[in-house]
């Protein structure tokens, strides 16, 4: 509790400043106040929690799941075969230079307003940190430990399963913690660009109605959900990897 006090105080000060400035401007369609956003969030709770939040969470979860599988497969493939690493690594890095907001409308052309156009944007934004971070985890294996296993007659598969996989576990958790906020952003961007439901879509709709607090309400909800998910993952990580500092 004590260690979070400085950041909690800073957030409180910023919110108070925001509240003061918003009250000074007194035009909620330009800058709604934090209290106004909370009130609006409560007013819009039914559509937000029953329709739009589940839709965005569906996109996020599916995108994240596919990214984890794809990222892990790429990391394993690159670690297993140096030729594959040479072939894949530059392509993976290049994929991150694609401006997501520019390419997302193309996905809508390909997949229409179905969930897949939005899932694809999420995957594009999240598979990279997972693949690269887990791959780096495999590479961080201590050479002496690898040699020790070799002297016990371990095969390449044994070394992977008994040494590289556990060594990469902390990296995997870091990757997931990076990917969660990115997946939420990806889903929201995709919904902004073309959707019939979801928090991104809802925020855009509120924009057309000049409802400033209504624009912010789904954004706040997204942030809270992302923070809660990262917090849960951190708890699981701390319970699972008690040996991180020993590596």
């Amino acid at each position: 509790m004590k260690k979070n006090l400085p950041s909690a105080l800073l957030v409180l000060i910023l919110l108070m400043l925001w509240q003061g400035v918003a009250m000074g401007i007194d035009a909620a369609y330009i800058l709604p106040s934090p209290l106004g956003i909370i009130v609006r969030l409560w007013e819009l709770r039914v559509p937000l929690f029953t329709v739009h939040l589940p839709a965005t969470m569906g996109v996020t979860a599916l995108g994240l799941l596919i990214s984890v599988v794809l990222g892990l497969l790429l990391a394993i493939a690159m670690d297993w075969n140096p030729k594959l690493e040479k072939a894949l690594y530059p392509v993976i890095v290049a994929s991150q230079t694609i401006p997501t907001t520019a390419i997302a409308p193309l996905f809508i052309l390909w997949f229409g307003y179905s969930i897949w156009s939005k899932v694809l944007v999420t995957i594009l934004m999240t598979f990279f940190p997972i693949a690269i971070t887990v791959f780096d985890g495999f590479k961080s294996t201590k050479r002496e430990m690898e040699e020790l296993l070799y002297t016990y007659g371990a095969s390449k598969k044994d070394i992977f399963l008994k040494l590289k996989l556990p060594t990469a576990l902390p990296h995997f958790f870091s990757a997931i913690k990076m990917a969660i906020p990115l997946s939420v952003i990806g889903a929201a961007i995709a919904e902004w660009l073309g959707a019939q439901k979801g928090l991104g879509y809802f925020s855009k709709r509120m924009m057309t109605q000049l409802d400033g607090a209504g624009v912010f309400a789904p954004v706040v909800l997204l942030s809270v959900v992302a923070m809660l998910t990262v917090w849960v993952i951190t708890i699981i990580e701390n319970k699972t990897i008690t040996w991180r500092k020993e590596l």
Partner: protein
Amino acid sequence: MLRFEGVSFRYPEDELGMVENLSFQVENGELVAIIGASGCGKSTIFRLINGLEKPDQGKILVDERPIETIKNYSAFMPQKDLLFPWRSIEKNVCLPMELAKVSMEEQGRRAEKVLAQVGLLEYAQKFPKDLSGGMKQRAAFARTLLSGADMLLLDEPFSALDYLTRVEMQEWLLQQWVHYHKTILFITHDVEEAIFLAKRVYIIQDSRPFTEMECIEVPLNYPRKREDLKKAEIVELKESLIGKLRRSVSL
């Protein structure tokens, strides 16, 4: 019996060879120490024995068979304990057996016996972070023993320990050697440690590449006591070995 026959070896990235036309042998059940200055190639000998490096020339034989044709003839224990932090002590010591596909039941039985022998049975379910430096080295030794190999290659296993623990571990190692009767090759920088433990001491004096190791018999019988190191001939031997090492460093 381990035998090097005219072994030469050079690391690909080095200009100079490490070992050239080296021949020596170690009898079964012997405890032999190898001493030499830093970087002289002591650890390379172990890397050649356990197959991490292949000789450019010559043969390495164990019981008259080339090492390429046999498996599980040696087990390596490095300076760092290299215990896997995510495994319990029991799981760590079982690792070589797991790789050899020994049944779970048998693994448990053998691990229990060896952990009791090294005084770590009550720590079986603990993790490496819960153990002291000396205990970790004992766990690493138990893992080396459980590989089932008859020849143990111990590369400065106690060098990272404090003096008192180190002295304790040396005495403990001698007890283990008497109990298990394995062939032990022991690399060390510490002349006193080499004399206290070994029946014979090989000393590397040449600059790279070295072609021979001088073999010196230690005039002490087993079991040994710490006070034996105060005997006049042992003090003399110690001084002589230190002198040889100093000369090799200045070469």
